[in-house]
């Protein structure tokens, strides 16, 4: 890894949970429709903030459900797997901030930025660093030292593919190469 050792990994930094995380009913699916909508919004925000802070691209619910995100051990309250799935579903359908990787709804891509936003971010970075008409491998783009300070460093390849596809559609990039040896040329 080329991550500079002077800076602690973002995953190790303690995450500051919002206040509702300490409110026991927050972990129970609310029956009142209005309350539930608010609850979903708050959960959605919490999940995205958490994933951004921890740089989580793929959220495996089965694993995360036992993590601190869904389990407030001090309150002895946890969100059930079904409720978490339901919240991800709401994030997917209402806000487009998540997507299931498989049909069994165990792993979800979490879009704290969605592919369109990532495409813009990557395009802007290319623009700033004057890398038009250069060819970069996807590995370079996400894991290379050049991008270490960038937000999209370490990006999940699936999200990267989607983002580059957006750029291709915009006519700003071209993806070529085979499975593992893909490269991208920016215009």
């Amino acid at each position, binding site marked *: 890894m080329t991550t500079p050792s002077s800076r602690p990994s973002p995953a190790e930094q303690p995450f500051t949970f919002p206040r*509702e995380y300490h409110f026991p009913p927050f972990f129970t699916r609310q029956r009142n429709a209005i309350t539930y909508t608010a609850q979903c919004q708050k959960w959605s925000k919490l999940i995205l903030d958490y994933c951004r802070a921890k740089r989580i691209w793929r959220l495996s619910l089965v694993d995360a459900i036992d993590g601190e995100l869904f389990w407030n051990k001090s309150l002895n*309250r946890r969100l059930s797997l079904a409720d978490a799935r339901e919240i991800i579903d709401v994030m997917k359908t209402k806000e487009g901030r998540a997507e299931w990787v498989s049909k069994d709804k165990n792993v979800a891509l979490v879009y704290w930025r969605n592919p369109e936003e990532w495409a813009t971010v990557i395009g802007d970075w290319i623009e700033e660093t004057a890398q038009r008409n250069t060819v970069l491998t996807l590995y370079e783009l996400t894991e290379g030292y050049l991008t270490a300070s960038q937000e999209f460093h370490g990006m999940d390849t699936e999200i990267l593919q989607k983002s580059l596809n957006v750029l291709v559609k915009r006519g700003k990039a071209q993806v070529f190469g085979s499975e593992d040896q893909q490269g991208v040329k920016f215009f």
Partner: protein
Amino acid sequence: MSLQRVDLTTALRPSLLPDETLLFVQDAVGLYEGKYKIPTCQNGHAYLTSHRACYVDNEEPRKNSVAVALKDAGFLKSSPKVTLHFKPPRRTSALLGAPSRSGNSSPLPRTSTPVSPLSPPPTPQPANTATWICPICSFSNPVPSNFDFALVNANTPLPPCLACGIKPPLARVLKAAVSSAAGRSVSVATSEPVQPAQTLPESYTRSDTDGDGDRDEGSASPVGSTATFRCPRCTFLNHPSLLSCEICGASLVSSSVPTHLLADAELHRSESPGPSMNSLGVNGNDITESIKFSFRAGGEKIFCERLKGAMVQRKWLLQNAPPIPKPNRLSPGDASASENAGAEEPQKSPEQKKVVGIAGLERRGVDMRKNNELVIGNAFEDLEALMGSAKEIVALAESFASKLNTAAGGAAGAEANAVLSESATAIGLVTTKDMLAGTGSAAESLYLSELARNLAEFLTDDARGVLKREGGIMSLVDLWAVFNRARGGVELVSPMDFEKAAGLWERLKLPVRLRRFRSGLLVVQGREWTDEKTIASLLDWLRDLHSAPGGGYVENLESHWEIELFGRGVTAQEAAEKFGWSVGVASEELEMAEERGALCRDEGVEGVRYWENWIVGRNESMQVDASSSPSSSSSAAAAAAAHGR
């Protein structure tokens, strides 16, 4: 006499005097004073009690409800209307006098009365004119002076008709005598509409010199002493009892019968020719000669029957009567029984004191059973005696009931049983299907509305405080059980009738209401207690918990700051204890508040707890909270500091 205002209960029924019992109820009743329609009293309920006949208006019950004390009522007649003639104020000693002493002051003529031009005005009469009409020859015979209808029976000898010599039926003479005594017309069946004409002349003023009543009536010609009736065709002055003119045979019926009597049977009230009067004569100065209850939806027959019964029983006389002497002392044949019959009473014979221990207890038990046997035996001897000893029997029955209850119920039920048996004595839960006339849907709906009123009274009675004990809300099923138990096991109300009656509260504007929770649970509440009030009191309570955390639940938590911020959750059990609700009601109320968005749920391993809803609009309410109270803002700051670590 005049009409009296009537005190109404919370359920808009007449509040009963001590010892007064409700005999009959009929709806769709209008009221006439004399011949005058009382415009404000044309649609209401008639309540017949043992002491009074009450009218309760449907529209404005508090304003337009009146009562007539039966002791003031002279006599009544039956038609689609029941007319109560008041005794003149002078005569208060006896209800009805003998006909020979039936001096009456004539009713004050109403100057504004539109009098039918053909009806003869009351004319003064010098002689006693108690007459009966021979059913054979229509001759008017005088009622013998020694004829006292209060004393006659089937064996009383009656003089034959002076014209044809046929003995009259007793009922006819009786009617004539009674009508004369009341100074008013006698009962007239609608099938004989002509008779009001014949009896009209009987109301007159009698001079005081005739008041001794010793005058021999046998030879007096009734024809000469009564008013005559002019034939509209040939002007011959006929005897008023004749149906047709003696000379020309012209019918005297149509002209002589007051038109409003003929119109009574019709239901088109707007066409009723009866004149109206403007106000109720309840001020006491206005002298009313009669009050008519007009039954628009039937029921008059039973009303009249029960009214007659009430007038015969004259229960108002019993109000200060001494208690019925104990019959158990009167059996001389069984000396020991008569000696020990008074075991329940304070005085004890010296022999009784000698028997002690278990033998004494057993002896007492035997004595009490003997006593009870005697009381019951005497009561059922005949119906009159049963009426007389009704109170005693009821008390006895209730003591049996309470004994049964305490034997059956456990420790928890004992208190409830005591209250129940107490309340059974205190209340006149008398609305029964038996009390209402007829069959069919009309009687059914009347029964239900009366039951609804009954229930409302039962619920709102402060002395019992049924609703208050349950925290202002109780489930319909509980109420049904309590109510039926309070009825003492007789005249039980079917669940279906009960639910229907409860559904009527809203429409009858009664002070209680039926509420259906989302789960389908039906509860009974005071009208003034709304969901908003419930939520407000729940939130007040939850906010109080912020500053005063208690119980082991809180101790388990690692950090206390969010308890100051969020308060803590409550269970249905806690809410039930706090507000005195049953647990079922409490959970329904909490769910209702959750549904309104005021609370939110927290399902933990210990069950569901309800919290103030911080999920929705938390930021707004927190800002309000912080700005309103410095203590909570400081706690919020502490929370922020805790986060910042």
